[in-house]
């Protein structure tokens, strides 16, 4: 079962996204609520998650900064952005994002994107 880490500053989103991912056959192995926490958590996870679902706009450290840090320690890390901020797309890809989804999205969009990212 593919292992996913969710990074978002909204607690309720973690709850519903975990249920959605479970429906799609994904296992959520870690929850982080800002970019700094995400980066530190990623470094400790063994094995690392198969995909990181990353929000962009978060306190302390945003998603693109966190992506750069994560990919610095693991260049093979797959980070799929799920963000309300469309304008962050090019910055996310420059940071090394594997994909960029704009909220709000249906579960089918999420699962299609996850499948695509995992196959690459």
């Amino acid at each position, binding site marked *: 079962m593919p292992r996913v880490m969710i990074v978002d500053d909204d607690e309720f989103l973690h709850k519903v996204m975990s249920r959605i991912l479970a429906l799609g056959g994904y296992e959520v192995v870690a929850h982080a609520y800002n970019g700094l926490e995400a980066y530190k958590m990623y470094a400790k996870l063994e094995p690392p998650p198969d995909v990181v679902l990353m929000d962009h706009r978060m306190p302390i450290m945003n998603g693109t900064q966190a992506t750069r840090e994560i990919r610095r320690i693991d260049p093979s890390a797959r980070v799929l952005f799920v963000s*309300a901020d469309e304008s962050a797309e090019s910055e996310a890809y420059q940071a090394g994002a594997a994909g960029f989804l704009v909220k*709000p999205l249906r579960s089918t*969009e999420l699962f299609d994107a996850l499948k695509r990212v995992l196959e690459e």
Partner: protein
Amino acid sequence: MNDSKMDELVRLVVMNAPCLILILDEDGKVVYANPAVSSTLGYSLDRVLGAPFEEFLRPRSKSDFQEAVRKVESTGGLQLVYLSALKRDGSVCDLDGNVFGLRDEHENMWVCCCFYDVTKAKRAMTMIRDRERKTSELLKTVTHDLTSIHQEMTSAFEVLLGEGELREDLSNMVEDALGEVRRGSRLVSAVAKLVRMDREGFEARPMDPAKCFTNALESVRPKYPDREIVLEGEFPPGYVVNANELLCDAFATLIGLMAELDGSRTVVVDVSVTEDRGASMLEIAIEGHGPGLKDEDKESVFDDYENPVNRVMGLSMTLVKRIVGALGGDVRAEDRVAGDHRQGVRFVIRLPYVESP
């Protein structure tokens, strides 16, 4: 009118002008100031006469004024200047005006200045810009947070549909709720984009509208997981238009509208493209087979915020018209079958193209 009468009138104009009028000698000293010097700078005429005008300017404006005088003396003409002066009470006065040169019958050079006090106007502009910046930040925050809330609601409803064993009527209600969330999300996005277009303008670059259309279709399909959106017809690649990602939004809105109007499990969307070579315009027709738009709705769907279809689409029809207009084109709604609105609507977007295949 005789010369002396004319001279008297000119004198009255200068004496009563609401702007500050000064004449400076070749050393930059004030040889004449009209009465507005008191109301503008707070100084008496006696204080000002014989003093270098620069004495009343803030340090950063002295070099600007010197530069303007230098240009007037060397090349003639009129120099526009914006200066910051210090009033007698110590407060700052913003002056907007011009400097020009005059030679008298003895070839003596005089520098003439005419300034308006724009202090209040500048303060108002600063306040407006500050408020716009704050409103813009607020709009970003509201847009972001509402979009996140919409995501949470969408996911929560999908969990209910996926995990809960709901009665059919409750399941239908949840699907309807998902539709309302979609409408809310479109509204937030459309309003944010409309405001941004008004404030920041619209930057365009060459792009292939066929790619835009394909991206739009691929972005709409996942939004309707219980429907199959089938494309018929072809959007030929190879045309180049000056546009940006908002063109994809416009296409996505119209394709999405077909899904909203057509309640069928399979939604057929036709696309066709024709070229008006004479006008270098592309006509892109997007049509659906579901219920169309009544005649009274065909115009108002783009402009009227209360139009039911525009409301269902969260004002994104207004955004479509604004985007297409910004690209130098236009959009109209027609019956797919002429004269019978019940058989579907056709939207025709006309766009100028810069290259054709």
